[in-house]
């Protein structure tokens, strides 16, 4: 009998992904006005790609690093307005304006992060929510720059296939980036921060810089999506650029898919869009209600998300471990304030 060395099973992941990418890339070429691949179908897919990208970038701070940002949609709006203002006031062409707009979002994230990242847990989450509301009203009040409540109009451009490709390519880049990041030392340090920030600090991780860096990057990534959306929409106003629901969607998708995983936001996003378009379309009045119930069920009973459920190994999503650890810590801590 010969010893057969344990052969590594051929890694099928790249093949599957390649097929997927090619399939989605080819889709617009099948475009015709009737039936399956129409402009509006492409538009829905574009929206899905954008939403998943935003969720993926939210996951960088929320999932990898454990800082749950309830105001994430702010970077979207800042990116949208940044791009829009630069295009209309400085007459820059789209691509430079997009990069500049996202840079503005990144700078805002860095500045705000320098203050809010010092907060922990729910305080951080709600401070970011407050920041989001503030940003929206600032866009409203700063009329000379942003057009105030009346909004900003840009020359319309309708090219659905183009936007489809751009948002899809961007999504692939962002997910690949997340995949890569997770495997670097930096990524590991983020996870270390999530699991035990003080311990990480003691082990030499510069938590302040790390948090700030990932926050800024997430802001930039989301800012680009905002700029793309704004350009496609050709009209901006504070009420449609700064929408809480975008943060909620990002959170829901990620949690549903698997907080802290790379595939989580993607899977959660696809599932959520599918649910919306197919299932709930027929029960529109109850649509939000059902989403609320779904969120509760997922959070209480499937906290590791779809990806977590699928993984059997202990290398799986660490969120349950985080919670168990946090749990133990809580029990050890004496309980707080005296009502007076």
């Amino acid at each position, binding site marked *: 009998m010969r010893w057969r060395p344990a052969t590594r099973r051929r890694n*099928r992941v790249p093949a599957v992904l390649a097929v997927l990418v090619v399939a989605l890339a080819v889709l617009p070429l099948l475009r015709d006005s*009737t039936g399956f691949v129409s402009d509006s179908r492409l538009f829905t897919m574009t929206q899905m790609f954008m939403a998943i990208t935003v969720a993926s970038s939210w996951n960088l701070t929320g999932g990898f690093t454990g800082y749950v940002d309830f105001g994430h949609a702010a970077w979207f709006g800042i990116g949208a307005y940044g791009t829009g203002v630069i295009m209309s006031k400085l007459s820059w062409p789209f691509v430079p304006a997009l990069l500049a707009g996202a840079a503005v979002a990144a700078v805002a994230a860095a500045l705000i992060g320098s203050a809010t990242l010092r907060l922990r847990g729910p305080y951080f989450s709600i401070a970011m929510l407050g920041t989001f509301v503030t940003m929206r009203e600032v866009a409203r009040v700063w009329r000379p720059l942003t057009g105030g*409540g009346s909004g900003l109009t840009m020359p*319309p451009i309708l090219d659905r296939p183009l936007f489809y490709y751009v948002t899809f390519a961007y999504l692939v880049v962002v997910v690949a980036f997340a995949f890569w990041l997770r495997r670097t030392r930096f990524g590991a340090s983020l996870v270390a921060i999530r699991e035990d920030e003080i311990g990480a600090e003691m082990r030499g991780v510069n938590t302040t810089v790390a948090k700030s860096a990932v926050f800024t990057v997430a802001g930039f990534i989301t800012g680009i999506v905002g700029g793309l959306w704004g350009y496609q929409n050709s*009209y901006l106003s504070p009420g449609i650029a700064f929408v809480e629901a975008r943060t909620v969607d990002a959170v829901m998708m990620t949690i549903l898919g698997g907080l802290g995983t790379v595939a989580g936001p993607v899977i959660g996003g696809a599932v959520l869009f599918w649910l919306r378009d197919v299932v709930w379309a027929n029960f*529109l009045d109850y649509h939000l209600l059902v989403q609320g119930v779904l969120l509760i069920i997922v959070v209480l009973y499937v906290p590791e998300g779809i990806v977590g459920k*699928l993984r059997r190994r202990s290398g799986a999503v660490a969120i349950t471990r985080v919670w168990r650890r946090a749990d133990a810590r809580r029990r050890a801590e004496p309980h707080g304030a005296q009502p007076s």
Partner: protein
Amino acid sequence: MNIRSTRPYAIAATAILGGAALAAGPAGATTEPVGDFAGTVRVGAALSETGRYEREGEDVRQGYDLWAEWVNDEYGGIRVGDDRYGVEIVYYDDESDADTVANLTERLITEDEVDFLLGPYGSDLTMGSSAIAEQHDMIMVEGNGASEDVFARGFQNVFGVLTPAGNYTQSALQALAEAGAETMVIAYEDTAFPTSVMEGAQRWAEEYGFEVLAIETYPEGVTDVTAIFTTFRDLDPDVFVGGGHFNDALLFMTTADELGFEPNAFVITVGPSNPEFADELGELAEGVIGPTQWESVMTWEDEYFGTASEYAARYEERWDEVPTYQAAESTATALTLQLAIEAAGSLETDAVRTALQELDVETFYGPISFDETGKNASKPMGFIQIQDGEIVTVGPADVAEAELIYPLGE
């Protein structure tokens, strides 16, 4: 070593492809014509069946449906040349969301392949929807998006039958000026439509000789306007002009009561012409003036729906409720499209567009003719006043049913 299983990625792949494949989306609801017609004119409409415009969206739908049923069942079909065509309206729910309405408008054009579009409710949704229509060179006639921005983009295919936002306050301010009012304060929600209205208000104020003592804005979803009204009260103006949404109208009147702010007239853009306003506020609503696109007592008339009150009777019989102006302007929108098709004698976009540009007609809703931007330049805004808890039409003068009470005595 690959420590992660490949399963999640396979699932992701299936999920995305599955999502794409199965994201067929809802089929549009339609009203099919029954009867003997040479063909069917297919019209598309994305409306707010859910979301914040749900109420108004329902009115719009009922307005469109009333027209469609009348055309198919009574009128005998739209005349296209020598033939009579039945009409079919394809509906989708835009959930009162700007992104959704754009998407759905596109679906109507590219998947459902409608011949024409009827507009959604609200200026913000009309902005997005009409942009799509213009880009696909499809005609859209709308009656529920009054913001000036809708018409400021140089579009050729968008036509609005309602009085545009800038003219909302014109007739009321004119009447108040004639009654002796001289000073005014303005408060409005800082979003597209109210801003349009108030920019117009300032122009008319200047034209009619008003002195504007103060202008204040507030954000969407405001919960407190005490500071604004305190300032206003100290200025003691003749007229208060304000506007945003229904919420704001309620807030204005309760706050005015609390602070003892008592101008000689209140003009509020959204709220008073809705019966629920007087219903909720009781005596606080007394004397408030509100612009209205249409009231059933106005004496406009046409050969299709008769007078305004005959239209109202028909509507009430069909839908078991009194028509709001949103419903009436929706029927008028569809009627306008019909008249243009008949004048053009064809369904060709260019022919119908020309017909619309040349249209000049009086309907039960009021006069309709379009300027070069697509606005209805010939229709004056009406206004009502709440008198003894009732909504009473007090302007424009030639179609009014009662006199404007100014100043408000107390």
